[in-house]
């Protein structure tokens, strides 16, 4: 994309005034300035009401990452009131009902909750759309960018990357699962598989986190989160425009290009059937990429954290890791994640008056306009699907897990993380004498809703020999 300079004149009340130069150009220019200032956004003084709502928000964020507490709170619902209506809200906790809810995408919709933020930050993307010709078309185009063998390619890349990242920490005997392993690995996968390396790793990590935070988790509309998210989004847009533009010209000139998601998306533009507009490529690429870092990192951190709580399971998982049985490690990881999933609750909007769990004793009429919370976590403790839910068992049916959601809006990156999370977990589990860092350092530290640090200690190779 050629950046244009110079300004244009226009007539205004007889005098000449200037029409501002292309805004994309400005964004590109402001890019660096903002990158350096974004971290030092001024903090307004928190007083009175703001402090109270701040506390409340803080509490909500904390609760969302506290699997055991959610379990305790939702257990009575699951047991006695599987569908509960309070005011404008409805809570659904049974596995069967949650699946029905998520499957009935035309009655329980996402656009009301997601479309506006999605539009503001990224532009329309399937995650903020409900079933429509546009949704189906764009989803199928994205689907066509996934080729056979991608899973193996991702597996190999993540395994190598993880090994390299862990190797760096070998000498120290301490690893931060989040910052040393999961986030950089996910960002490198963005570069290698999706074709979006970002200007550098830290910038990319910051962009992905702030954009993701604003897009999906800024429920209370925190102005600082919004500012940071929108600033990152503007920078990322300018970057992505440039990236896509140069990739397209490379392809047009017949230069060799890496076979990654971006190349495939651009190549699909040749066929009118699968052609996304240039802007369509940008917003779809953005949408796919933004969801691909923090989710992976959170899943890995939570899985390791839960395994560390369970000595026996941890040892068996480590054995599987040492035996390079990553599929088995995956079973441990996803079972562990059940105790503290990345999305304990999903929300949907009730688009029209409808009945949930029709024909059962729980049958419930829901008027339009309500918000329904699908309790993913309690559903994964529903004894009718998860026998003896309190026990850690790896022989559970893989299809019963709801980590990737269910129905139309099942996570698009599922095929990536089914491979990536087990590989990352395996890399950690292979460490000798894996244990939490002692004291407070050994618990997960969160940055808002995101795990920001999980320190584990292990024996260095020398120690192991000795």
């Amino acid at each position, binding site marked *: 994309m050629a950046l244009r300079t110079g*300004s244009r004149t226009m007539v205004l009340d007889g*005098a000449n*005034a*200037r*029409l*501002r130069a292309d805004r994309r150009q400005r964004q590109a220019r402001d890019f660096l300035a903002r990158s350096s200032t974004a971290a030092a956004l*001024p903090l307004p003084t928190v007083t009175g009401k703001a402090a109270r709502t701040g506390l409340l928000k803080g509490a909500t964020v904390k609760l969302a990452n506290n699997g055991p507490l959610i379990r305790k709170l939702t257990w009575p619902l699951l047991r006695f009131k599987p569908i509960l209506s309070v005011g404008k809200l409805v809570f659904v906790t049974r596995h069967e009902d949650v699946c029905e809810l998520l499957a009935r995408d035309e009655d329980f919709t996402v656009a009301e909750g997601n479309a506006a933020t999605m539009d503001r930050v990224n532009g329309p993307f399937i995650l903020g759309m409900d079933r429509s010709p546009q949704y189906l078309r764009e989803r199928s185009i994205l689907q066509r960018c996934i080729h056979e063998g991608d899973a193996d390619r991702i597996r190999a890349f993540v395994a190598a990357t993880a090994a390299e990242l862990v190797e760096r920490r070998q000498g120290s005997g301490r690893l931060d699962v989040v910052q040393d392993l999961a986030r950089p690995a996910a960002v490198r996968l963005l570069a290698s598989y999706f074709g979006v390396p970002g200007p550098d790793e830290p910038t990319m990590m910051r962009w992905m986190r702030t954009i993701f935070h604003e897009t999906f988790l800024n429920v209370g509309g925190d102005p600082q989160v919004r500012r940071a998210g929108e600033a990152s989004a503007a920078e990322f847009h300018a970057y992505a425009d440039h990236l896509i533009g140069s990739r397209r010209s490379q392809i047009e000139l017949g230069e060799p290009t890496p076979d990654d998601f971006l190349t495939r998306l651009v190549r699909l533009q040749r066929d009118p059937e699968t052609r996304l507009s240039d802007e369509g490529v940008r917003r779809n690429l953005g949408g796919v990429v933004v969801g691909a870092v923090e989710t992976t990192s959170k899943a890995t951190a939570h899985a390791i954290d839960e395994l560390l709580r369970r000595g026996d399971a941890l040892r068996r998982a480590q054995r599987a890791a040492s035996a390079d049985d990553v599929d088995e490690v995956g079973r441990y990881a996803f079972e562990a994640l059940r105790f503290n999933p990345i999305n304990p609750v999903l929300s949907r909007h009730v688009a029209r008056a409808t009945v949930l769990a029709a024909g059962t004793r729980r049958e419930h009429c829901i008027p339009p306009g309500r918000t329904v919370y699908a309790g993913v976590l309690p559903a994964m403790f529903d004894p009718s699907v998860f026998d003896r839910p309190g026990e850690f068992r790896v022989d559970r049916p893989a299809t019963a897990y709801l980590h990737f959601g269910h129905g139309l809006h099942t996570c698009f990156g599922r095929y990536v993380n089914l491979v990536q999370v087990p590989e990352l977990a395996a890399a950690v589990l292979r460490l000798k004498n894996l244990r939490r860092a002692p004291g407070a350092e050994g618990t997960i530290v969160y940055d808002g809703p995101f795990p920001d640090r999980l320190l584990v200690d292990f024996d260095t190779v020398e120690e192991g020999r000795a």
Partner: protein
Amino acid sequence: MRQSAFTILTHVKAEDVADLECLLTDIGDDIDENPHLRFADLDNLHYASLFVVADGTRDPYLVFEGTIDGRPHEFLDMLLERAPAAVDKIYRHCVDYPVAGAQDRGVVLDYLEAHDIGANTFYVAWPGWTVDDIRKEQELRDHIEKFIDDQKDADLRHQPPQTIRQRIADHVRGEPTTTWARTARSRPFLVKNGKTVLRLGLAPPAFGFLWVLKAAFSGASTRRRRFLARAILVSVLGFAGGAVRQLRKEETDDERRDRERAPDWQTTYARWTEEEELLGIVRREDVKVQNHMVSVTRIKDGRFRLLTLRLVLWVVNLIARLTANKGSLGGISSIHFARWVITPGDKSLIFMSNFDGSWESYLNDFIDLAARGLTAVWTNTDNAVGFPRTKWLVTEGARDEARFKAYARFSMVPTHTWYSAYPDLTVSNIDNNMRIRQDLFASLDPAATEAWLRRL
């Protein structure tokens, strides 16, 4: 300075009605340049209107509505000083106008003041903002806008928000005609503290009631006191119950009478729309951004309705003074000034309003945003179309869109003469200008700076 309202109501000699209407129409047709009365010469005047109500049922009368800064006495004195001939020409047609009028200012002043019935309810969008303030702040805004438009090298818009604001402030500082803008302008006491005042006012009766409740049912109070408290409680409840019953009775009676109305309201209204009167009203409308509306309705018979009306007007007036004093009355933010006046003899209710936009959009606002308040007032009045059926004083009523609009249209009287001191500004323009000025030199955080720049 506080704005005030005067409403001078004088009876017109029956034989002079046509002449007077003709004169007022002449003035109104060319409000700026007419040879009779130049309103623009009268400082402190926000709005003025003059119209004759001659519906054939009562003695015709002339209403002179004025909204001014300061007190009516000074204003009327100035009016008589600057335009004695015009006043004489108009009031000559009125009953009781002092014969010596043309010569003696004092006599005329007394005459006008004696006929000023003020307003039962008076709403001011921006209390304390004088004509001068409003005009100057618009000039300030124009000045700033011009500065921004004149930035030929387009350099300004590439600066960070703080710098842009700084440059604008510097530019204004360098302009000698806008020195007044450097001193901040504080809002009147009641605008800032109205809610507190209201709470303080409500507290004693609320505590009193709680005390009575406690005394009536607590075992700790003496027998005598308990008896007294219960007696008070019973009488208050009894009085309230009686009032509600009476209200419902009045409302069901109205409903019955309405069913018997012949011809029905649609026919009455349809016939009226055929008359020239509607055209007389609409020919004055939508000429400028602002419009004026005068509605005259007959207060329903009986003491109860008059009492309810007075009570409602008092409450609305209180709300207007204390809480609805920031550019919006019940959600409607297009009214500059409005008033309700009960005419002497308690026969009619006159509503006068200076508002932005068309009559149609104004009435839509009534129905969509403030139906309850409007219903509570107008349900106590009547005309040949009839106010739509109301329940519990505030519900239904104005929500019956078609009939409410017909009722309001039918109740209107052509405004023969109408003057606005700033016909091109809306309530929200004035608000915006006010805030531009207020924060121009203030110290603002980044978010507030961006918000300020959005006002330009």
